[in-house]
């Protein structure tokens, strides 16, 4: 593919990469799976990029592709990482400190989110990223009322998961 297009894409991906990191953090609990998902999302973003027309903000578009990739990915936690990274992009090594600095309550909440299904995780992510219910409903393809109802149910579910 076109070199300048790739350059342009890499620049956008580099500056918006935290979106991908966040999606990986919500969907995967161990670092190896997060690395896999990060890779898959980046590839899918690149595949989809030539069709990006700039009708929406790049970040909105990125959330959509990233979430869709995460939801339709079939091996989020199940596989044990067996291969070694030969070309050694060592981004896997950091990013655990987050978990250790969290206080216990946050840790519990984090675990509870990990137990939610893929769709509910998407809702949580969009919610904590300050998306409106309208944006949430558009991203997931459900009605706005439903997004609201679902979010309330998730809050109750999380509460029971934290204080059983």
């Amino acid at each position, binding site marked *: 593919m076109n070199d300048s297009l790739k350059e342009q894409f890499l620049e956008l991906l580099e500056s918006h990469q935290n979106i991908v990191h966040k999606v990986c953090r919500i969907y995967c609990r161990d670092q190896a799976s997060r690395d896999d998902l990060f890779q898959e999302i980046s590839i899918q973003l690149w595949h989809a990029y030539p069709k990006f027309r700039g009708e929406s903000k790049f970040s909105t578009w990125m959330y959509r592709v990233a979430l869709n990739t995460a939801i339709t990915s079939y091996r989020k936690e199940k596989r044990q990482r067996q291969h070694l990274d030969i070309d050694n992009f060592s981004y896997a090594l950091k990013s655990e400190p987050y978990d250790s600095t969290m206080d216990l309550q946050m840790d519990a909440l984090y675990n509870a989110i990990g137990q939610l299904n893929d769709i509910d995780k998407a809702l949580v992510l969009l919610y904590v990223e300050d998306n409106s219910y309208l944006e949430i409903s558009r*991203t997931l393809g459900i009605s706005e009322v439903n997004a609201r109802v679902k979010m309330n149910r998730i809050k109750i579910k999380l509460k029971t998961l934290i204080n059983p």
Partner: protein
Amino acid sequence: MDALDQFKEKWKNQSDSFVHLDKAQLTNILKRKSTNLVKWIFVFGLIEFALWAFLSWAFHDKSGGGISESKVFVNFFNGLEILSYAILIYFLFRFYSNYKRISLVEDTKQLMAKIMKTRKTVKLYVAINIILLIAGTIATLIMMMNFDAELMATVNDIQIKQQDKYFFARLVLVTFAILTLFTLGLLLIYWLTYGTLLRRLKANYKLLEDSEV
């Protein structure tokens, strides 16, 4: 403030904890192979295409000088072969167009609806393959009884000589036993490949469907 809103506060302050990847590292990542679900469904389709083609070539080669030279027989097997190739090519085309149509830019529900359509195509493909296998075997047996005089004469001969009235019946039974085993084996393979890929997706799709009150 509920627990999730507290989480929101913390969530927003976590950006520093992410490793920042530079362009060179990102370029490396992009060089890797995708593990995309729909792509895998398509790849499985291709493997199957090669496998069925190989099997039919292998059997064709052996039966060339085999049991019967009868014209009806040859026509029948050629017809069956053309039919199964036509079905394969049609489904490969369907897999490919499904694969091309799916876009991750759509909303999640629409995306999943399209993937589920791919799933339907796979199911139909599996069903047709199995039906074709069973129907093909039954038809072969009927053809043998009606058109392969040489073979039936041998069977009669064995039945008379060995005083075994049920030789042919047992032959048919064994054929069906093998057929059943083969079908079960095939279903197991499909369950392990397509089934594994699509089970989780189906569960997620149901969640979005159920959410419409």
